[in-house]
C-alpha cells in the first residue's frame, strides 16, 4: 500500500512538472504579449517587461518561476496589476468550489439513485424512462441547460433572480446546470455494472437466504457496482470544483473558471500557469483519492491499479 502511494505520488509530481513546463513555454509561444491590448508606447512597455522580468532569457524566467513555485508563490498577475495569482485564486476558488461541491453531491446522489432504480427495473418502463432521460441528458450541453433554466425559471416564472445570489437557494439553477451531465453519466455507469452484478450467483444466494430486496440491492449489490462510478467521480470532482467557464459566464458567477479562459486571451502568463497548476493539483489529488477509495473498497483493485 505504502509503496503504491509513493509510486503514485512520484508519478504525479512528474506530471505536475510536465504540466508546469508545458504551460510555461506554450504561453510564451503564443503570438502577442500581455500588454498588447493597452496600446502603451515602447518605453513603458520596456519598463513593464523589466518589471515582470520578461526581458530576461526564457530559461532564466523558467528557473525563477520554478524557484518561486517551490515557495508556493505563483507570481503576480500581468493583467490585473497589484494582484497576485494566489490572491485571485483565493478569492474566486471558494465561489466555484461552493457551487461545484453542491453540484458534485447532487450529481452523485441523483446518479446513484437513478442508476440503482434503472438497473432494478431495467426491463420495465421506469428503467427505460430513466435510460431515455440519461441519453437526453448526455445530448443537451450545459450551455443549453443553463440558458434554458434561466429563461424558464428566472425570466418567465420569476422564481429566481437573474444573476443575483443572496439566498442559498439562488444557487439552485447553476447547481442543476452543472450536475445534469455528470448525473447522467453516473446513472449509466451504475446501471451497467448493477445489471451485471444483480445476475451474479451470490446475489441469487442472498435472495434465497430470504434477505429483503432492499438489503440485497443496497448492501450486497451496490458496493460491487460502485468502482466505475468512483473512478469517474475523481476527475469530475476536479472539474466541478474549479468551475466551468460556460456556466460561470451564463450565470455571471465570479468564479475561477472565467479567469482560466480570459487569461489565455489576455496572455496573462502567470495567471494561466497558476490556474493550470492549481487545477492539475486538484485533479491529481481527487483522482488519487478516488483510487484510494476504490482500493479500500476492494483489495482486488490493487492489481488493476498497479499494472
Amino acid at each position: 500500500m505504502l509503496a503504491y502511494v509513493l509510486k503514485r505520488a512520484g508519478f504525479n509530481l512528474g506530471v505536475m512538472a510536465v504540466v508546469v513546463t508545458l504551460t510555461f513555454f506554450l504561453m510564451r509561444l503564443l503570438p502577442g504579449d500581455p500588454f498588447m491590448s493597452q496600446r502603451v508606447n515602447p518605453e513603458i512597455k520596456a519598463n513593464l517587461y523589466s518589471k515582470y522580468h520578461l526581458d530576461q532569457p526564457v530559461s532564466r524566467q523558467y528557473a525563477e518561476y520554478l524557484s518561486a513555485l517551490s515557495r508556493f508563490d505563483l507570481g503576480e498577475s500581468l493583467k490585473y496589476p497589484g494582484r497576485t495569482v494566489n490572491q485571485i485564486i483565493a478569492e474566486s476558488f471558494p465561489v466555484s468550489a461552493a457551487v461545484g461541491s453542491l453540484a458534485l453531491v447532487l450529481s452523485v446522489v441523483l446518479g446513484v439513485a437513478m442508476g440503482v432504480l434503472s438497473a432494478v427495473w431495467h426491463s420495465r418502463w421506469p428503467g427505460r424512462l430513466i435510460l431515455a432521460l440519461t441519453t437526453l441528458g448526455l445530448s443537451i450541453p450545459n450551455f443549453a441547460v443553463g440558458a434554458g433554466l434561466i429563461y424558464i425559471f428566472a425570466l418567465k416564472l420569476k422564481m429566481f433572480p437573474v444573476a443575483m445570489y443572496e439566498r442559498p437557494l439562488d444557487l439552485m439553477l447553476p447547481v442543476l446546470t452543472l450536475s445534469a451531465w455528470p448525473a447522467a453519466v453516473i446513472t449509466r455507469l451504475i446501471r451497467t455494472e448493477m445489471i451485471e452484478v444483480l445476475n451474479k450467483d451470490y446475489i441469487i444466494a442472498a435472495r434465497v437466504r430470504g434477505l429483503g430486496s432492499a438489503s440485497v440491492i443496497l448492501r450486497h449489490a451496490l458496493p460491487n457496482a460502485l468502482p466505475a462510478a468512483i473512478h469517474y467521480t475523481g476527475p469530475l470532482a476536479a472539474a466541478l470544483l474549479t468551475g466551468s467557464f460556460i456556466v460561470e459566464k451564463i450565470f455571471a458567477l465570479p468564479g475561477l473558471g472565467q479567469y482560466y479562459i480570459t487569461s489565455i486571451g489576455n496572455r496573462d502568463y502567470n495567471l494561466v500557469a497558476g490556474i493550470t497548476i492549481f487545477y492539475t493539483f486538484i485533479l491529481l489529488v481527487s483522482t488519487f483519492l478516488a483510487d484510494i477509495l476504490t482500493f479500500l473498497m476492494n483489495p482486488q483493485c490493487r492489481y488493476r491499479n498497479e499494472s
Partner: protein
Amino acid sequence: MVYLRVFQNRLVLVCVALIVLYILISFGGTVFLPHHPNAQNLDQANLTPCPAHWLGTDYLGRDLFSRILSGVRISLIIAFFATLINVTVGFLVGSVSGLLGGIVDRFLTGLIDLFWCIPPFLIVVMLTVVLEPGIKNIFIALGVVFWVPTARIIRGEVFLLRNAQFIRIARMNGASYAQIIFLHVLPNCFPVLLTTAIFSVPDAVLAEAFLSIVGLGVTAPDASLGVLISDGLQSFRVYPWQWFFPILTLSMFVLCFNILGDLIHRSFRGRSKGILGND
C-alpha cells in the same frame, strides 16, 4: 454481412436516416438555402420567425435558417476530421503498443498516461490559440486530445488478442506486424473502433461549440453551430429563438449519434466476447 444486422432495430434506422438527412441538406450547397447565409440586411435585423425567414433573423438581419444549415456543414466537417484523426491515431498507437509489447508498449502507454493527466481542454484551447482559430486548426486541436482514450481502449483489446491462436499462427507464417495489424487486428477491433468513432462525432461537435463560446470558434463571416449558439447566448433573454433553434439542431444531432452509438455498442458487446471465447 453481420454489421447490417444492426439496422434491424427501428431506432437505429431513424437515427441513421436523420443523420443522412443532416448530411444531405447541409452539403446540398445553396439548393436548400432560401437565403445566402452571410447576406446581411440591417432593416430586417432580429425578426421573429415569419414566412420569409422561417426561423427569424439575427442581429445583422441574416437568415437564421440558412445560417443553421451552413453551420451544420462546418460543424460536420470539423467533427468528421477530428474523428478521422482520433480513430487513425488511436488505432495505430493502440494496436502497435498492444501487439509489440515490451519497450514500445511501455513508451506508448507512458505517453497515453501523460496525456491522460493533462486537462484536455487546456491543450485544445492553447493549441487553437497557437494555431489561430479556423476550421482546420480546430479539428487538429481536437484530434490531438481525442486519440488518447481510443488508444487506451484499443491497446487493451489488442493486448488480449496478441496471444490468440490466429495471431500466433499468422506470425508463425511470417506475417509482418503491418499485415497482422491491418488484416487480423483491425477486423477484430472494428466494433470497438466503430463505437468510438460514433461517440467521437458528438464529442467533437460539442467541443467545437465550447470553443466558439469561449471565443475561439470559426472566424466570421463563416459560422458553425457553435458560433450561432454563442451569438444566440448573447441575447437569449430578448430573442430566445436565436438561441433556441441552433441549440435544438445541435442537440438533435448529438442525440442521434448518442442513441446510435449506444445501440451499436450494445449489439456488438456480446460479439466481442465471442471472439475471445473461441481461444
